[in-house]
């Protein structure tokens, strides 16, 4: 503690260490929030179902997505990244996951929503396996904190299927 610089350095180091400590506790306090998100997806329409020129199947859908993710937001949440994926099995791959739509929810007020949208990303198979295929639609979310660990979870909704013939 001999000069200004010495004291300033000691203060700064201690201040940053204490800051790291309270951020860690803030992140840990997220464990005590109880979360019950809910979601529902309906397929309104299958717009197109064809075989591409290279030989892969492609589907275009219109989805009705309604979700209530408000309980995921805590004081330490910066934003929630949510996406919808279609999951199905083919003889070649045990699990195929194709992301159809995603969004960023920046605040708690926007976390309860219902939208009708066509798929943002193309639903293309590796092969021609989609005729009559049964698939699950899964709503995944990643909760991004202001400090600390990001955690992710999902809701699986089974029971959707594609028509047996191309349109």
């Amino acid at each position, binding site marked *: *503690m*001999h000069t*200004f610089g010495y*004291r*300033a350095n*000691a*203060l700064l180091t*201690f*201040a940053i260490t*204490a*800051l790291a*400590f*309270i951020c860690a*506790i*803030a992140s840990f*306090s997220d464990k005590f929030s109880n979360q019950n998100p809910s979601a529902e997806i309906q397929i309104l329409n299958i717009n197109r179902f064809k075989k591409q020129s290279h030989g892969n199947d492609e589907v275009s859908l219109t989805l009705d997505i309604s979700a209530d993710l408000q309980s995921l937001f*805590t*004081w*330490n949440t910066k934003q929630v990244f949510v996406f919808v994926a279609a999951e199905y099995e083919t003889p070649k791959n045990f699990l195929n996951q194709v992301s159809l739509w995603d969004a960023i929810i920046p605040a708690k007020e926007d976390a309860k929503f219902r939208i009708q949208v066509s798929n943002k990303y193309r639903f293309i198979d590796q092969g021609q396996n989609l005729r009559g295929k049964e698939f699950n639609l899964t709503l995944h979310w990643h909760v991004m904190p*202001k400090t600390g660990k990001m955690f992710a979870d999902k809701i699986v909704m089974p029971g959707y299927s594609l028509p047996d013939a191309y349109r």
Partner: protein
Amino acid sequence: MDWQGQKLAEQLMQILLLIAAVVAFVVGYATESFRTMMLIYAGGVVLTTLITIPNWPCFNRHPLKWLDPSEAEKYPKPEVVAVSSKKKSSKK
């Protein structure tokens, strides 16, 4: 600052920062606002800087007693002896 003052300043710094951190967390958690926590903590850091870094008079209450010049003359500095193979110590 004198030695006692330095010790006091260091202790004060640590205690003030700890209190600022605890108060910031508690208020931030209660109001569910991360921004509040950060603002209170930043305010605490600035306050601690103002209190502990400059040379306030309260840190100088036990000043060092330097020797009078007359005292110092009674004990002159030892003179450098020419280097020899025998080690001789002739200090007063």
